[in-house]
């Protein structure tokens, strides 16, 4: 094991208090704290008080649509002003509702600056906000903002002075889509991130539909949804739609997209979660195209895919995938925890690992909340929590009616004040060393029964303990501050590409410690209704040193770095050595 020069550690430690970074590892947890909660709900204290409002439609099918459009409560995290603290963009959906840009004040309080920044107006009679994505599409080092909408989505360019400019038209992105999800990654490794948009309904005007036949044609094999639309970044501030050219052919009811390098070949692959039918797995051919490998990789399912997140939960060096579906008394679908077999095939081990049943699932995110080096999982659930009466008999009365045309919205029963998989408790699965997961949500006060949707994971106070921002449909969000007392060590990185796309989306980092090598990577927005941090975080448990550090950049560069002192956030510029991250000191 290589020893670090005493001098360099000392100089780092001397620097730390000035930047508000913990100067020394925390003490080990006393046994009396072993059953205490490690998360505090600081939502009110943080000043994040605005609730979400579901869109109410005003058309002949409004009462029916009410049951199927309780969507749009989403959040995306990025440090948009490069002050070293992660900020949060949150969507609302009602016609007059404003979106929110919560600027992180650096002390776990936030200020809504959306109006001032020019990004508040995400809703009107013809558009409803449904999601959000931060992406640096022009490689200027400033996260830009893509507001995903049923209608016309908006691309805002970050001008760097706290103000954003709508560049949708000039970027070539002005198109009607019933979009619900967007992720950005550089599929052709040309140094600029491309845009992948998941669409729920087909591109019909759902605000004023000309025909009632715009609902899913089947509960298990519907192919009349919006599917996926791919925009290639032309590297000049514009995009060109290339969906067919790159080989993405799906017209499913797409709810989420997730990218990751399944076979560690340096090219990002794509998982598409579709509601009412078959998820899709696309392998990146490395020549600017994808091949649909669904059949061999995951097989054809008939479930209700809601979420995709990638992470190496068993630390075997390959990224695994977590997908939520619907699991309730009346519909026993079960989630997928796709274990990566390393050969572009996956095996669902959700039953064996205890991650099978999370109710009516929504976002599910991998993150290491106790810094023990094993990725845990937090999962949202709950569709409609309303009156005592259940909507299930109504829906099954329709389903069992002979010859019913599901695509015709008029055949779907209005939900009224009934509940459907409502009041479900969220799940926090602690990863027991890659074998099974144990639900610890109640212990940590993370078992809310709101209708959860998105989860944005980030370290909002830069203390190395990952916090959670949760969005809830028709309700207030929750900001959970991680106060882990165990003293477990950690290490974190902000990556910046030079030859690679500047936000380093797709870069993989491998850290060796504790006799293991941990793989984490920069993802460009995976997970339903949410985008977590693009920082890369490693829990290290008892390890006070790391023995190796390697970054594989999307450009193909494999960079080996000197081992660094633990318990700090570092910035790594592609091809350069790591520097301590300096909150408040990086402002442009």
């Amino acid at each position, binding site marked *: 094991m290589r020893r670090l020069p005493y001098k360099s550690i000392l100089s780092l430690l001397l620097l730390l208090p000035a930047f508000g970074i913990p100067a020394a590892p925390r003490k080990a947890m006393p046994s009396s704290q072993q059953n205490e909660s490690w998360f505090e709900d600081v939502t009110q204290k943080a000043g994040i008080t605005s609730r979400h409002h579901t869109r109410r439609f005003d058309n002949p099918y409004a009462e029916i649509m009410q049951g199927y459009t309780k969507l749009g409560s989403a959040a995306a995290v990025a440090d948009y002003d490069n002050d070293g603290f992660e900020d949060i963009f949150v969507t609302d959906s009602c016609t007059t509702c404003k979106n929110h840009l919560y600027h992180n004040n650096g002390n776990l309080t936030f200020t809504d600056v959306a109006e001032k920044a020019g990004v508040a107006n995400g809703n009107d009679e013809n558009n409803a906000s449904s999601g959000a994505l931060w992406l640096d599409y022009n490689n200027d080092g400033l996260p830009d903002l893509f507001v995903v909408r049923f209608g016309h989505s908006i691309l805002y360019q970050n001008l760097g002075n706290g103000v954003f400019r709508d560049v949708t038209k000039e970027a070539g992105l002005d198109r009607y889509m019933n979009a619900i999800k967007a992720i950005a990654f550089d599929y052709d490794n040309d140094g600029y991130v491309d845009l992948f948009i998941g669409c729920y309904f087909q591109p019909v005007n759902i605000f004023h539909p000309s025909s009632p036949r715009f609902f899913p044609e089947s*509960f*298990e*094999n519907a192919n009349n949804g919006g599917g996926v639309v791919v925009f290639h970044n032309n590297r000049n501030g514009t995009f060109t739609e290339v969906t067919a050219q790159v080989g993405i052919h799906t017209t499913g009811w797409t709810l989420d997209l997730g990218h990751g390098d399944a076979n560690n070949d340096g090219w990002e692959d794509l998982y598409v979660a579709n509601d009412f039918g078959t998820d899709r797995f696309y392998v990146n051919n490395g020549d600017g195209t994808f091949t649909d490998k669904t059949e061999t990789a995951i097989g054809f399912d*008939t*479930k209700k895919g809601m979420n995709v997140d990638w992470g190496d939960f068993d630390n075997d060096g390959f990224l695994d995938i977590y997908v939520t579906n*619907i699991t*309730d*008394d*009346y*519909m*026993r*679908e079960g989630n997928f925890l796709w274990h990566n077999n390393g050969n572009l095939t996956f095996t669902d081990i959700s039953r064996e690992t205890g991650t099978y049943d999370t109710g009516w699932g929504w976002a599910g995110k991998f993150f290491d909340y106790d810094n023990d080096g094993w990725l845990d999982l937090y999962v949202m659930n709950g569709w409609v929590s309303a009156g005592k009466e*259940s909507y*299930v*008999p109504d829906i*099954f009365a329709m*389903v*069992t009616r002979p010859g019913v045309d599901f695509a015709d919205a008029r055949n779907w029963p209005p939900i009224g004040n009934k509940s459907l998989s409502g009041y479900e408790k969220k799940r926090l699965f602690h990863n027991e060393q890659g074998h099974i997961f144990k639900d610890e949500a109640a212990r940590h006060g993370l078992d809310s029964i709101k209708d959860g949707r998105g989860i944005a994971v980030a370290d909002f106070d830069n203390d190395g303990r990952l916090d959670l921002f949760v969005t809830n449909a028709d309700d207030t969000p929750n900001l959970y501050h991680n106060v882990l007392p165990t003293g477990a060590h950690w290490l974190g990185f902000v990556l910046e590409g030079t030859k690679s796309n500047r936000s380093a989306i797709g870069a993989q980092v491998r850290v060796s410690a504790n006799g293991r090598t941990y793989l984490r990577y920069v993802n460009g927005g995976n997970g339903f209704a949410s985008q977590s941090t693009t920082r890369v975080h490693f829990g290290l448990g008892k390890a006070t040193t790391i023995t190796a550090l390697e970054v594989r950049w999307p450009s193909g560069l494999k960079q080996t770095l000197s081992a660094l002192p633990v318990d700090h956030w570092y910035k790594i510029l592609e091809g350069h050595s790591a520097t301590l991250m300096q909150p408040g000191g990086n402002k442009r």
Partner: protein
Amino acid sequence: MMKNFLSCICAMVLSISLPGGSTAASDADYQQAMRALTTNDYSSALRYLESAMTQDPDNLKYASEYRQAAIRNKDFDRSVAFFEKLAASRPQSANIHLNFGFAYVDKIPTAGSITQVILANKALNEFSRAVELDPNWINYYTRGASYLFWPKIFNRAPLGVADLEKALKIQSTGPRRSYYVKVYVSLGDGYWKTDQLDKALEIWRLGLKQFPGNQQLKFRLEHKGAELQDTIESSFDPNKRVDTDLRELWIAS
């Protein structure tokens, strides 16, 4: 062998409509089918069994063997279509409706979650028709057990309990059959599903007295709480195949 079979049938026919009067021709087809099955020639086996059933539609044995062959060959749609046609031509045959229902049940584990409900509902319709036409033990037991698979929200478990209590009454009047233990297990599960734990324990105990050593009953009586719940709920998992093989009816003591 045939003698044993016939004596068994003679004993059984008193309480249930078991295999109908097989003809020489239908039996020849059945034998051909059995030979085809020994070489995994499912295509021929299914064809011969369809021929046998067309000649002797009430025969439970032919129907059961046909469905088991269809399961092994994953030919669920063929099985459903065949029984649908047979039921249309012989609408008054309880045995055909029973097997038609089972054909739907056989397909359930291979289907998506919504199709499972549709299939279960269709199966239930056929089982109800069978009960209407012939309210015997197998028809009450089958429909009763089928009701228990439905999620609680549909409130069908009480209907299942009612059917299973009728099956219990029928079986208590005749000679003891090994398969009667199924009613004790299912009826207890029905009581459990309707929040009557005391009655569930009582019927499981009674069953164990009648059928000492039965593992399902023993397990239910030896476990409680979450473990018992997991066991019962997992037995109603629509993704698991339900054993719809009826041969126990004619080979059981």
